[in-house]
């Protein structure tokens, strides 16, 4: 074959491909239009049935029939959308009815699929339709390596009460990315009693590398029974643990919290001092005013900023300290006091956020 013949073959192949691509584009649009025209009335029909079902004017069988007429992904979307609008018991009835549907069985089996999107579909389905028999599947999905699957599986905890799942989610918490972790935490807050029991056990494992993340989460719960473990951890050798403790204690206005923060505000690490002084501002106990005033002279800019902002929470006492410092001899404290006094209430509120 000569070079020219080879190029001719390539050119011909390109021509065929070009035509094929154009046909593909046009066909794709046509098929989508047809599919949407076919499915849209079915979706509307299902919405109508769901509405009647919520008013007890239609039976669960009608809903199941409507769901089975849609492609699985659309049926799951519809379930997820409607689950937020229907009361618990009634929805549980539907969840139990769904157990016997063939398509729901296939979706459930996908919890072991090698393809993450199939596991995601299963997790989304279980997040609204799981029953006690699905705990093993949800457990598996909670431990999935794909964060999208983890997020969907964690949502199940909103509907399914199970100490096993709560423990598994809590165990998983420190290994997750920060945002997925925060999402888990918001879900776990709803299962408070089981969470508190398990947290108290975790706090006893002082060498556990997961401890900072566990404290971060526990702080968000603002549960009084957790205050004592926090104050005990104020002397922990790990700086990250102490930072999280300093942050969490601001949410517990108690004399023991103040004592622990008084210790942390003198820590070697500036991040811990900044957090501690911020928390002292949140508690705003007048007895701690000298500590915050001292922090205004800290060698680190961020600690001075946090101290200045904390003083604004002490009302007139704090303002007087700032005014005194503004004309004081300590240059850096004076600059910071001047800066804080010049901030508008709006700017202060934004810093406090």
């Amino acid at each position: 074959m000569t070079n020219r013949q080879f190029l001719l073959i390539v050119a011909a192949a390109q021509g065929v491909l070009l035509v094929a691509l154009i046909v593909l584009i046009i066909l794709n649009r046509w098929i989508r239009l047809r599919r949407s025209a076919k499915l849209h009335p079915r979706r509307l029909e299902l919405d109508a049935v769901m509405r009647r079902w919520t008013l007890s004017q239609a039976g669960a069988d009608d809903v199941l029939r409507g769901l089975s007429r849609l492609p699985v992904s659309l049926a799951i979307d519809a379930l997820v959308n409607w689950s937020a609008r229907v009361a618990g018991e009634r929805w549980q009835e539907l969840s139990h009815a769904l157990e016997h549907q063939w398509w729901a069985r296939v979706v459930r089996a996908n919890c072991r699929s090698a393809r993450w999107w199939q596991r995601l579909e299963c997790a989304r389905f279980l997040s609204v339709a799981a029953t006690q028999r699905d705990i093993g599947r949800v457990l598996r999905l909670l431990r999935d390596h794909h964060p999208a699957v983890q997020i969907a599986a964690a949502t199940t905890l909103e509907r399914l009460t199970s100490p096993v799942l709560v423990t598994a989610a809590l165990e998983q918490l420190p290994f997750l990315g920060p945002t997925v972790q925060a999402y888990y935490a918001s879900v776990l807050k709803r299962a408070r009693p089981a969470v508190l029991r398990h947290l108290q056990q975790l706090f006893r494992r002082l060498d556990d590398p997961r401890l900072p993340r566990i404290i971060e989460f526990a702080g968000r719960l603002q549960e009084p029974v957790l205050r004592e473990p926090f104050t005990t951890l104020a002397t922990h050798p790990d700086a990250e643990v102490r930072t999280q403790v300093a942050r969490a204690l601001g949410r517990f206005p108690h004399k023991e919290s103040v004592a622990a923060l008084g210790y942390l505000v003198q820590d070697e690490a500036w991040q811990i001092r900044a957090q501690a002084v911020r928390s002292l501002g949140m508690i705003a106990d007048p007895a701690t005013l000298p500590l915050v005033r001292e922090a205004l002279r800290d060698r680190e800019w961020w600690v001075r900023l946090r101290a200045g902002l904390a003083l604004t929470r002490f009302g007139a006492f704090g303002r007087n300290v700032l005014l005194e410092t503004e004309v004081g001899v300590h240059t850096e404290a004076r600059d910071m006091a001047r800066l804080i006094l010049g901030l508008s209430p709006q700017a202060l509120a934004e810093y406090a956020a």
Partner: protein
Amino acid sequence: MTHVIQATDLLILAYFLGLNSFYALLLVLSIPEIWEQTRLAEDEDFQRLMQSDALPPITILVPAHNESATIETSVTAILTLEYRSFEIIVVNDGSKDDTLEQLRHAFQLYEVPRTYPEGIATKPIRAVYRSRTRTRLLVIDKENGGKADSLNAAINASRFPLVIAVDADTLIEPDALLRLTRPFLLSSKIAAVGGTVRVANGCTVADGRVTDARVPRRFLPGIQVVEYLRAFLFGRLGWNRLGGSLVISGAFGLFRKEYLHAIGVEDLDLVVRLHRHLRRQRIPYLIPFIPDPVAWTEVPESGRILARQRERWHRGLLAAMWQYKGTLCNPRYGPVGLIAMPFFTFGEALAPLIEVMGYVVTIAGLALGVVDLPFALLFVLVAWGYGMLLSLWAVVLEEVSFRRYRRIGDLARLLAYAMLENFGYRQRTVWWRLKAFFTVWKHRQVWGEMTRKGFESAGKQVAGQARD
């Protein structure tokens, strides 16, 4: 002489085959990537995440230099983004027009003291303003120092861990920020994420939002729609799989602030510097591109301004490749050193030189009778056909995934532009990029001005299209 021409011809042929095989690889890799990204984009659990406290707060950096025409619309649009926690820092980079006055008037700015240390050195700050009407807005007025200097000033002032740089002439879709944070939710290794930039010319814009996506009827902006689709939808998606994307659009990219603090922002080489820093520090990282967050930008409508833009872009590319030549084929930098840098150096930076050399050698070969005319014409036909295939493939990816252009007329125009791009327009871009070599040769670092028309209101825009 004949031997030289034959050898050069062979070299160019090998280059053509190598480069196009790599494009074919990118094309193949873009298929699973778009499939996966579309799946994730449609996941409704992320919609639920949007309403939770789990989202990381974001700082939006808006450098503005002589952006009086668009600044109010852009900032208003950004302020209405669907995101729970974000702040906007607009940096007026010594504008000579009334950009600052426009902002002051529109958002009732008042001066506040500076409350942050200068982490990265920048040109002097004249004043810092907050808005009486929009608590999320901070405006920094500083002396002119260029876009990178403005970004550094904004990074110093930012409070949040993720920062996104947005050009003042860019319109971000309401849910784009939420979508852009998705990789940060899915992995803790993400250092930066790039989103898609699309062409706003010809679209209907209302209240700083693109309400109706259209393909422009005018040739130059229309053909840039195809160029942008090709660059974003298959080029960058393909690079995701190769782990070495060197490009995140300066107009729309989300970065982890701690890394920017470490390296500072310097013009067009930001992502290369980021790769180098993270590799040297042995920090595991990913810099992916995701296609569903969309920002719309106004592209040049006149050949003169487009020429200046392309020449400037290419000059930036040449400068970056030269500055980081140490990473080229260097295994220490992993896929960046072994795949991305060679591709961007030989396949992008030097491409105009090689293409022109190809034309010259072919003409010389024809004159000397070394090259057969039908063969040369056939070769050009195959080269152009391949270009058309790549552009059409970008249209296919758009159609099977996001389908922003709903009208049949727009689709027809897209197809037409994809076919016509190789006839005349491509050769013009080669010439513009070639001019960058001359400019670099003469050490002239003149940055061109981009003339903005400003986004028109819905009515005006439709009327404008009717006139066209």
